[in-house]
């Protein structure tokens, strides 16, 4: 029991349950709890969740990545221009997009470990550089900043298949959570991640290759962001340089809701998963209420604050209870 209470995701779980019950009650009759309503918030959460999981692991290791927003848009534009302007088949184009995501991650990682500058600033700069380069090259090459994507059946099956109204992105999200959770809790690399974020000097002294840990996590984050860009692009048949800009802060927000400490060293993938689900419920459920949407950000902010407070309270309660 105490080990259960000590888990970082407990607070997020409690907050999720409370929020879900709240919306189930206030949206009665609008179909929020129906199969299609559930598919709706899961679809929204899934796309954010795929990128939030590596972002969260990176945050546990003590670093931020704010360049994810532009990477999402860049990947979608790479696929769009490669397929519709150069007539490239979609799979090599997707490979190229993921490779570019990995390179952006590598560049972030190298810059952070070489310069020792805060990753918050380094990756914020990367975010501007990448969206600027995406727009510049798109205009130079094809005279556009958003463009159609020429897809194929297999690409559609992998990135945009649907069962009823549930997108395949939900499965990718679950997959990312399972892989991320396994890496973080069952492997040596996972221990290195916690050690790097907990106390970098001590970790280095104990022989943890902290630089390599960080660079690998930055690359994973870049690839995940590019993956979401491909997924959105194929799903909407269109690349757009501005896709993903909302994730820049939404991803760290759901990670923190999920119980990861902003300073690193503490957190879990299950928590991040629940934090993302909570965000999906709030930001979708609010529209099923039919309330005046002029106030929407106020509701959203208040509910997020409440969720984090509840989370924090439960966690503190759990941590004291173990003594």
């Amino acid at each position, binding site marked *: 029991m105490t080990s259960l209470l000590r888990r970082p995701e407990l607070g997020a779980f409690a907050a999720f349950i409370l929020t879900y019950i709240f919306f189930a009650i206030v949206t009665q009759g609008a179909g929020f709890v129906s199969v299609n309503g559930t598919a709706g918030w899961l679809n929204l959460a899934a796309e954010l969740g795929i990128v939030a999981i590596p972002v969260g692991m990176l945050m546990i290791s003590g670093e931020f990545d704010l360049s994810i927003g532009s990477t999402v*848009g860049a990947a979608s534009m790479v696929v769009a221009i490669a397929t519709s302007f150069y007539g490239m088949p979609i799979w090599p184009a997707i490979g190229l997009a993921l490779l570019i995501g990995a390179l952006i991650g590598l560049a972030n990682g190298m810059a952070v470990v070489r310069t020792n500058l805060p990753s918050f600033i380094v990756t914020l700069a990367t975010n501007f550089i990448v969206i600027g380069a995406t727009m510049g090259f798109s205009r130079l090459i094809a005279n556009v900043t958003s463009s159609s994507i020429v897809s194929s059946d297999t690409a559609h099956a992998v990135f945009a298949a649907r069962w009823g109204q549930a997108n395949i992105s939900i499965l990718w999200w679950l997959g990312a959570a399972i892989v991320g959770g396994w890496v973080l809790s069952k492997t040596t690399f996972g221990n290195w991640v916690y050690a790097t974020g907990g106390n970098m000097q001590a970790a280095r002294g104990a022989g943890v290759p902290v630089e390599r840990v960080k660079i690998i996590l930055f690359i994973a984050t870049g690839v995940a962001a590019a993956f979401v860009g491909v997924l959105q692009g194929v799903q909407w048949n269109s690349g757009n340089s501005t896709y993903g800009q909302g994730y820049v802060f939404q991803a760290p927000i759901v990670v923190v809701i999920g119980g990861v400490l902003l300073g690193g060293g503490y957190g879990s993938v299950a928590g991040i998963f629940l934090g993302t689900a909570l965000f999906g419920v709030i930001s979708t459920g609010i529209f099923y209420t039919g309330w005046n949407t002029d106030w929407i950000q106020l509701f959203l902010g208040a509910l997020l604050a409440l969720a984090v407070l509840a989370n924090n309270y439960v966690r503190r309660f759990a941590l004291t209870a173990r003594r």
Partner: protein
Amino acid sequence: MRGFLDYLNSAARVSRRGLGAVLLAGALSLGAAPLVAMHAKAADDGPIIVVSGPLSWPFFAAVKQGFDDAAEIFDVDFQYVAVTDTANMTSDYPRLLQQAISRNPRMLLVGEFFPDGMDPLIKEATAAGIPVLIHNSGQTLWEQNGSIGFIGEDPYQMGFKAGQIQAEGGVKHGLCFNQVPGNPTVEARCTGYVDAMKEAGLETTYQTIGTGDATNPQAMLQAIKGTLQANGTIDGVYTLNAVPAMSALRAVQEVGRAGEVMIGTADLSNEVLEAIKAGDIAFAMDQQPYLQGFLSIQTAKQYLDYGLHPIGAVTTGPLVIDKSNVDKTLEVNKEFSGVRGAS
């Protein structure tokens, strides 16, 4: 930042930083304005300077194409001045305009995107005898600041027209979906739509979303879906950009009301045009950015050479694209990428 910000609903990067920043920067540059252009004058051998929108946006790429084509046809030279970094446009644009005026241009072709900072400068320029022609934004200001004319659209009228089309199409309860709340141009479109529907005695709902989600089609889909679920009587949707138009289409399909809800949108994309062709979206509205550039150069040439110019505002929008003319638009979009400001 009127018509300029139209395009922000697709770009949506700057508007997110908020109206507060716009107003603040506007106020700051207003204070600086009287210092400028004190010795400016129109020089016969001076350049024609265009102060217009950032070329990273497809909309202004089309405007620029119009400038370029007309300049070639009429054998006119001009210099295009625009920001490349869109983070501080409210203060950058008055500064760019200031610099343009101080170069003693033969004529100024200006998009008056940020009236608070730009209008006093335009007044200085016209007082100094520099002919100024406004395009794209500034439709309510050009008569007072001494400009010779205006070429562009009225966002309110654009929305009003959309409301009229939906009312005539039998819509009883219309939803205006604004993905960039706080942007005055975009809000004017919704206001126009709501007014037209009200005039016809019909019900309307105005919906916005969180600012972080302005470029997330999935988030917009879920938001519209939720509103359609919460409100079963909505049978018309008007979106303000091509991306939310596609989200609205999916939302209508997901709640099982395809064919019952009439969807119309401002602005174009290939996806929207294909959906119009398939009959899923009723109409899209084009403000014809190319014409704003082309007609500006043509007017400049004829004004400088012969003293001729159109009287009053030249309206370039909205051109309504529906099933009857969508094929031609798609054809043009494929053959002349960028001219329609959509792809």
